[in-house]
């Protein structure tokens, strides 16, 4: 049997919101006789500073061991009472909050019933608090260095943000120079948007190279990773000046993935053979650099919307290139698309400009446009059906239109950067269907991966525009700074605990843990392995506890005994 603890019950009337339906006199009368309850009193507005001081004094004077506060929802003022109780010298787990406002007084109108219900709630909370044990906290040293993988736009920006916050950072880049997509797809134009982006990247590279807090490794990759958030041990492979490969061990606290995305040209989806007259959007960018190739071209046709449905993010590039063709070289441009997406900054303006300059937008529907390749050097014919010309939905021949053109520009698919799959496998990070890193929660925790201490930034989660990438970088750097700002991390020991005597090494928990916090460890005894929960990586969800067939894992605060004590009367 458990020892009887001195329990104090504090009832908050919340300015009559609770006490107008719940009869507090009856409750006090009900609990007054019980010998395990040493204090029971009613207060008004317990969350106010004045009453909190009284509350703390009362706890100290009567030497209570556990406290029940019957007030509003623990989601609202739970942290206030928990803090107060710690200040009064009791562990925070020895506090139980009973939700009398939201889930009793506000939903049950009948007074007698509400009072009986409140008594029931307080009784079950008493049963439970008897089983509660104090939860202690622990501190561990952390390594304050951050590793950023990928030296593209997002990687550089995050590195600079972090160094501004005073964090040491290591930047890994597998190519010979920093810059990422700047070196491949972007080009110098007079367009403001593209120019400012290039300018920003160039400035960032200069800043990164001159910053003493930043260390840059080019031509190097991450090979393996072990450890816990705050204390990762990584091995990187790099190339020295004499072209020999070197392995280097580094200790880091957090990892930011900024591997980005790449373009992929799926020729099979268009059903054509590769030809010099058919190019992609990024190839057109290169072609625009040398003027002489464009002299023999009179008409250019773009086809959009076959590979990707959502064209918002690449729309600006397409319209910019089309405008350049018509402005500089007086080339007739046709754009074939399903829908024109302009729901992005500046796109509506570009679209208006394009219409005024004489770019022809043509709409096709369910049937894909056919591409008829002629002989080399002759015009390509694009055949599609304009549904406005089809009168009775039967004679589709009426709506057939053929556009002859000298150059056909097709859109590309966006896929994760090469090697992203290997990296995710090594880091044990979840990916979505297309192979992009998966965010923990699409709207609440977009930068988090399933593992604590590993974050993603930028287009490695799917294509992003500049503004949202900048937001992302700021968010990640704040989050990393929050984790590593001090030399030690303090954490509560409310994490899952494994009883190794009961454990049969079935490895169910290893598979089910969503955060990969459970690992196999070598025991001190020779040839013995054991399951160990990493307290820093664990987020105390209790999924492993419910899955363990031998019930060898327990979660302090939510053990089977405690749960059933609340369920049963």
């Amino acid at each position, binding site marked *: 049997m458990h020892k009887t603890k001195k329990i104090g019950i504090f009832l908050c009337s919340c300015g009559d919101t609770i006490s107008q339906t719940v009869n507090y006199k009856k409750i006090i009368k009900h609990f007054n006789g019980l010998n395990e309850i040493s204090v029971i009193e009613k207060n008004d507005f317990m969350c106010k500073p004045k009453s909190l001081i009284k509350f703390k004094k009362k706890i100290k004077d009567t030497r209570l061991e556990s406290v029940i506060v019957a007030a509003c*929802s623990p*989601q*609202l003022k739970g942290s206030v009472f928990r803090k107060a109780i710690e200040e009064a010298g009791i562990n925070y787990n020895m506090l139980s909050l009973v*939700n009398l*406002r*939201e*889930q009793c007084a*506000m*939903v*049950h*109108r009948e007074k007698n*019933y509400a009072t*009986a*219900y409140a*008594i*029931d*709630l307080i009784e*079950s909370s008493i049963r439970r608090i008897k089983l509660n044990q104090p939860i202690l906290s622990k501190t561990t040293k952390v390594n304050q260095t951050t590793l950023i993988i990928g030296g593209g736009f997002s990687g550089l920006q995050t590195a600079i943000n972090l160094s501004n916050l005073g964090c040491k950072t290591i930047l890994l880049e597998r190519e010979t120079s920093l810059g990422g997509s700047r070196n491949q797809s972007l080009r110098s134009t007079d367009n403001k948007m593209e120019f400012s982006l290039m300018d920003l990247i160039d400035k960032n590279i200069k800043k990164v190279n001159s910053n003493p807090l930043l260390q840059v490794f080019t031509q190097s990759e991450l090979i393996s990773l072990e450890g816990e958030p705050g204390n990762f041990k990584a091995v990187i492979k790099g190339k020295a000046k004499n072209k020999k490969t070197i392995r280097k061990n580094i200790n880091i606290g957090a990892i930011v993935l900024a591997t980005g995305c790449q373009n992929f040209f799926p020729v099979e989806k268009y059903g054509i053979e590769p030809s010099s007259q058919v190019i992609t959007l990024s190839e057109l960018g290169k072609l625009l650099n040398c003027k002489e190739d464009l002299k023999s071209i009179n008409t250019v046709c773009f086809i959009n919307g076959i590979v990707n449905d959502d064209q918002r993010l690449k729309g600006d590039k397409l319209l910019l290139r089309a405008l350049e063709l018509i402005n500089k070289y007086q080339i007739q441009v046709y754009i074939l698309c399903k829908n024109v997406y302009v729901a992005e900054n500046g796109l509506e303006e570009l679209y208006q400009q394009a219409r005024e300059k004489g770019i022809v937008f043509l709409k096709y529907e369910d049937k894909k446009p056919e591409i008829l390749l002629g002989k080399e050097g002759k015009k390509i014919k694009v055949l599609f059906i304009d549904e406005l010309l089809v009168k009775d939905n039967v004679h589709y021949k009426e709506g057939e239109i053929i556009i002859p053109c000298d150059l056909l520009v097709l859109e590309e698919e966006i896929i994760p950067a090469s090697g992203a799959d290997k990296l995710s496998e090594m880091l044990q990070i*979840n990916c979505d269907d297309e192979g992009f890193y998966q965010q*923990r*929660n*699409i709207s*609440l*925790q977009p930068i988090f991966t*399933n593992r604590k201490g590993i974050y993603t930034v930028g287009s490695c989660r799917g294509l992003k525009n500049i503004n949202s990438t900048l937001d992302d970088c700021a968010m990640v750097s704040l989050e990393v700074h929050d984790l590593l700002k001090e030399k030690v991390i303090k954490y509560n020991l409310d994490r899952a605990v494994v009883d190794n005597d009961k454990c049969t090494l079935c490895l169910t928990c290893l598979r*089910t843990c*969503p*955060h990969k916090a459970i690992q196999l460890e070598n025991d001190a005894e020779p040839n013995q392995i054991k399951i160990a929960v990493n307290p820093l990586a664990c*987020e*105390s*969800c*209790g*999924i492993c*506890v*419910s*899955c363990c067939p031998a019930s060898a894992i327990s*979660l302090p605060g*939510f053990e*089977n005994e405690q*749960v*059933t004590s*609340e*369920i*049963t*009367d």
Partner: protein
Amino acid sequence: MDLKKKNDFIPKIIVLCCENSAYRAADMAGTLKLSFPESIKIISFPCIGRVEEIHILHALENGADGVMVMGCLEDSCKFLDGDGRTKKKIIYLKKILSEIGIEDARVEFHNIAPNMGTKFVELVTEMNKKIKELGPLFKKDNISKEESDFEKRY
């Protein structure tokens, strides 16, 4: 505590909630001043994935007439797939219950978001209605008869 009057059956329903979604939905129902049916009891968990089959069976054994398990909406669990795991457990549990002769409708799983206060009340009232039609899980007379039979035999 006598909540039950004679001849008037008030079902006792236990609602196991994820503290990140369903518990907040219940709070929201309170702030919207909606009313719960009588005698539901809400118990919160850090994640609905913590719920085990044994907890639900314990509840049914100890006087509950129905158990509702409420987790986050699909693909929005803070711990990736807590709701999916529990959903599987409930399907398995329903099979066991129907094998031992208890109506499997007494246990239900629902996905709910923290801003769905009205939906929470709708679900709970619907369950309350269903359990009222089914009647109490253990009728007192039945148990005493069975027990007396048991005593006679051995």
